[in-house]
């Protein structure tokens, strides 16, 4: 029985944090976020060199073969500094390929993901968040048609893992015929979204093994990783709010000596500390407790969404006016938390999924036929 991080985990955190301090200091992140196309090639290169994208890739495909707890610690570090770099897309696409691709495809793609030369976007919104309007792709005879919304890590993507509206998973080359791509600008200027419009576009089914289980595993991992990203972002906001409350003076005293400010900070810290244990637990469960993996992933995503929203708002309140300006860059984490909340299933949906995972209510009904255009 040992619940907590070991020395390897701490070393991973420390080296990644050092790298981010050098390549993604606040001023740099602010500068990238102000650009029209907010990505930072230097940072991406440095992260790739560090092995960030190789974390979950199996060792026989040149990866590090680590588990989801390690991937979650990395997500937390990236969220903490609002790193303007892809992560969810490549890491989760790699997981989908590992589980669902055949040997040849894996040998072709996974080593490239591990080195960072292939940075796929992930398009599972309709399966994990539900299909909005008429969005979603349908598959027929190895060809995709329709539009996938909210493709994650879009700007740097040179390939895509796509889930069809009925839960199939596909590998899609970025130069596939009949594919057009649009960037979707979003509040978080450190990560990019897009949409894929497919018109009879050829794609490779990732149907090695149990497809339903592969999608579930990828979705669970996605939920845990965004929860960890929110944990990191919210922790930064708390830490900075506390530091500000220790220094900033109004009415002749540090504002942190006012009970109202003190209690806001205590409430944030209490929520985050318990949430941190939940994220570790959920991440670890993905690799070790298969019976509880879905339940914990859903809860981690939903709970961190709520705690993150609370901390984002409350920390901003502690700062007062300066908190809503670009001067301190707090909004970078605020928006990161805002985007995470909506990705891969909003909290309400994740809680329903948690109830389904323990059999309290029935499974989600199949996608209604009349909407399958």
């Amino acid at each position, binding site marked *: 029985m040992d619940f907590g991080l070991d020395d390897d985990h701490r070393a991973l955190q420390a080296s990644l944090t050092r790298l981010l301090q050098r390549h993604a200091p606040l001023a740099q992140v602010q500068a990238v976020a102000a650009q029209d196309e907010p990505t930072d090639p230097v940072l991406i290169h440095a992260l790739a060199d560090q092995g960030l994208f190789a974390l979950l890739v199996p060792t026989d495909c040149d990866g590090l073969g680590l588990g989801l707890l390690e991937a979650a610690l990395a997500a937390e570090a990236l969220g903490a500094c609002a790193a303007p770099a892809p992560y969810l897309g490549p890491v989760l696409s790699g997981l989908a390929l590992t589980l669902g691709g055949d040997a040849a495809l894996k040998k072709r793609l996974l080593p490239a993901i591990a080195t960072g030369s292939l940075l796929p976007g992930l398009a599972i919104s309709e399966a994990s968040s539900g299909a909005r309007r008429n969005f979603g792709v349908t598959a027929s005879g190895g060809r995709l048609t329709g539009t996938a919304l909210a493709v994650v890590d879009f700007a740097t993507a040179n390939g895509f893992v796509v889930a069809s509206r009925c839960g199939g998973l596909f590998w899609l080359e970025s130069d596939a015929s009949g594919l057009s791509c649009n960037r*979707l600008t979003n509040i978080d200027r450190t990560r990019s979204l897009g949409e894929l419009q497919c018109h009879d576009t050829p794609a490779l089914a990732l149907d090695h093994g149990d497809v339903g289980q592969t999608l579930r595993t990828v979705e669970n991992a996605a939920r845990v990783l965004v929860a960890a990203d929110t944990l990191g972002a919210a922790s930064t906001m708390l830490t900075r709010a506390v530091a500000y409350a220790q220094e900033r003076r*109004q009415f*002749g005293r540090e504002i942190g000596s006012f009970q109202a400010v003190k209690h806001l900070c205590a409430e944030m810290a209490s929520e985050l500390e318990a949430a941190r244990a939940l994220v570790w637990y959920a991440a670890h469960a993905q690799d070790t407790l298969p019976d509880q993996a879905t339940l914990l992933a859903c809860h981690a995503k939903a709970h961190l969404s709520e705690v993150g*929203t609370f901390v984002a708002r409350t920390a901003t*309140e502690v700062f007062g006016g*300066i908190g809503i300006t670009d001067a301190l860059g707090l909004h970078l984490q605020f928006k990161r938390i805002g985007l995470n909340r909506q990705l891969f299933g909003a909290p309400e949906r994740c809680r329903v999924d948690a109830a389904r995972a323990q059999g309290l209510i029935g499974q989600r009904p199949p996608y*209604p036929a009349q909407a399958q255009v």
Partner: protein
Amino acid sequence: MKLAYAPADLAFRDAVRDFLATHATSWPKRSESMRPGPDQIAWQKLLISKGYAARTVPEVYGGYGAAPDLIKSRIIAEAFAEAGAPGGLQNQGVSMLVPTLLELGTEAQKRRYIPPTLTGELVWCQGYSEPGAGSDLAALTCRGEDVGDHFRINGQKIWTSSAHVADMMFCLVRTEAEAPKHAGISYLIFSMQTPGIEVRPLKTMTGQAEFNEVFFTDVMVPKDQIVGERGQGWFVANATLKHERGMLGDPNAAAARLRAITAILQRETVDGESLINNPLYLDRLMRLQARVLAMEANGLRLLTAAQKGEPAGLSNLIVKLMGCELNHQLAGLAIDALGELGVLYHGGPHEVDHGIWQHRYMFDLGLIIGGGTAQIQKNIIAERGLNLPREPKLAKPDAVAR
């Protein structure tokens, strides 16, 4: 208790409606600029001539000169909202400087500044907050040195929303270095063209530069540009702040947002199912509708009290705290219900309502924080509304500010 209008009021409403229908072609376009353009100035002049703007300002200062009548004011606001017509100007000059001058200005100041302010031709900005003096506004350190018939101003202001387009500023300056914290401040008005003023835009989290910082280096302001007495600026400003607080937390705005969100829930689908059929979003919508109705009813109560000249007490003190929070929560519901569509922003494809919900979610958080934070509002409610004791004095009072 009588929620219907009297016959005379109904007749007045018909007149306003007629006016709006007749002049629909003259409605100016909504402008992004904080400075009114020619069509807005023309519209404002027309509204003043009809008594639909500057209604109670005396004619001699360019207003319509009617006696105060809250019912008529409400009818005007309702009729304009109903028609979707642009109402009278609501900038800081009209809303804050004019009432202050009317109450405390000299005759010369009133005659010179109020008429062009009312028409929108003279634009003002407010110089109150400083980086070191936010919620503790009286700690301000922007200094006005007495140099004969002028004050020489040095220091910095922040959160001056229209500084980049303004002609003039009304400004709090510490002119009496030796006086106690609250008694050393004067309320000065001066041209933004005065040498030594530098305006820098201040970008907020919404991505827009809704505010500015203003820097003063040896700015010379004639001593007759003071409103009220020397050292009395704190009290002059509080009269003005009172007017600002009344502007925030308007329940009509919340009701309009609620309608817009209801339309989103009815229109948008997930997995082919209308969002209005999602019991969780519907429950949140209904929770917020109850709050909107409560604030509307509270507004009616305030209106009645004002009409009768009765003190409004708590029901007035809560408007900003409750109203800003409500608006923030409404925006939060819209974003949540929209899911991944709700995070789209900065103008790309599929963005809903031009990203207004994200913008409001962030901007309203700014309102909760700004203009006296929610924390300060709660102190006021507790101390003035409930008569709870003030924070006791500290053992070693620090210097006025750092």
